């Protein structure tokens, strides 16, 4: 009996030791994005692309809601191959479309959730809209790396589970002045922990069709 317990403890200890390297080699990228005035930028996409071999992707299922005649979230980051559902949570019908070369599609007027999701299988940016409510514009960033996320209201996002190694980190935003590549920078994630990166980006004014009323212009009515 005592021998069995000792063997069991030894096996657990060996197993734990075997896991340590993998855990220790998983670093993280703590990103902070600010605009030209130093204000935090929400809805900025931060990606970390490993240099060398292309990483394995694990596409899953995501949703972009339509709430109060807006796409929620305004920016959604997914990995290539992800199936995205577009539930309409308003009590009116919406019509979702995209002209973007990365993914062109159209979901004719509907309520509820369409039975089939839209699969985003190519990397790039897809701008979506509603043909009824012109101010409804959203963006889906399709990444070719599993290490992607969007910033919160404080302009922060943490990409965890990054294997140690060299990366190119980029930031993208719908109003980014210049290209995503121009906002890229090399970094090295070591096996011991976190890398903090701060971007200061220049944003253009948001000039999408205005939702607020203008005298004499009746919007979509």
């Amino acid at each position: 009996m005592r021998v069995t317990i000792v063997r069991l403890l030894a096996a657990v200890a060996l197993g734990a030791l075997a896991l340590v390297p993998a855990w220790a080699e998983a670093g993280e990228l703590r990103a902070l994005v600010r605009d030209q005035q130093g204000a935090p930028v929400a809805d900025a996409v931060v990606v970390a692309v490993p240099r060398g071999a292309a990483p394995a992707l694990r596409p899953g299922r995501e949703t972009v809601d339509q709430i109060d005649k807006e796409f929620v979230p305004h920016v959604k980051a997914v990995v290539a191959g992800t199936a995205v559902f577009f539930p309409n949570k308003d009590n009116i019908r919406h019509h979702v479309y995209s002209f973007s070369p990365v993914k062109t599609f159209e979901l004719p007027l509907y309520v509820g959730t369409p039975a089939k999701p839209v699969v985003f299988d190519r990397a790039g940016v897809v701008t979506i809209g509603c043909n009824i409510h012109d101010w409804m514009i959203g963006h889906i960033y399709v990444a070719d790396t599993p290490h992607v996320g969007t910033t919160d209201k404080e302009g922060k996002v943490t990409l965890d589970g990054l294997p140690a190694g060299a990366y190119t980190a980029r930031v993208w935003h719908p109003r980014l002045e210049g290209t995503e590549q121009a906002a890229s920078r090399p970094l090295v994630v070591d096996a011991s922990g976190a890398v903090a990166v701060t971007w200061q980006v220049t944003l253009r004014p948001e000039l999408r069709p205005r939702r607020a009323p203008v005298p004499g212009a009746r919007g979509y009515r």
Partner: protein
Amino acid sequence: MRTSLKTAAVALVAACLLGHAPAVCAEWLLDAETGLVYESNVGLSPLRRDVKGDVAAATSVSAGLGTHLDDHTSASLTADVGGQKYADLDGLDHVAVGLTGAIRRKLGLGAAAPWVRVSGTGARLDYEDDVRTGWRYRFAVDVGGRLGERWAVRGGWAFEERSADHARVVSSRLPGDAFDVQGHTFSARADVVATERVSVFGGYAVRTGDVVASTRRDPGIFVASTALTRDPALGPDFVAYRIEAVVHALTLGLSVAVTDRLSVNASYERLQGFAKRGIDYGNDVVRAGLLFVY
């Protein structure tokens, strides 16, 4: 098959009308506007001696239902209530109650796709001085579209007819229905997004048809008129006359978004009317107020 389709259609319409299927059919619409309007020449008089300016508090509310008939077409039906209260010229105080129906169709996909809107309005006008009390009808066709991120343009044609309940005859040679008027308006307008919150708009319109204006007795004007009636709203010795004219209107405005549903707005409009025999007038209109849309 046809019977079941008919039954489904009838059920859908009935559900819409009874409000049992708002998710499928319709959304509530509500527009509310309030503000001040200043006019430098309320009576549109061509004679300096008769020009009267005044300021009015103006409020209007439109509420109704809108629905999307297909991927490109929307329809709406609203009940409209509005009114103006003048600072000095009490006889011009009025309330308007009416209905507006509109169908708007986008000719393509996307925010930049051009659109066509056809609308019709019927309204009852009830003035403090009832010589103006009556009905107003308007039928309009507008087209528009966006040109890039900043610009939106639109143009349109409208036919408007107004008929008054009463005709106070003041001349044996002319009818008293001066407030029975009709005319055609052609308009063009551009909106520019200046910043994320500020839009600027400008427009030009030309109207041909009847104009009703007010003056004290003037033989030259009366000879050119097609109808005359007393107009105590402007003064005890004022007469309203109907005359054919061409009116040009230039508008410049500013709209500041406070929220997604509320804006603060100001505009200036210059009206210049030209009638035969040199009976011309000008009117400067300044508006400022709030506009809310739900």
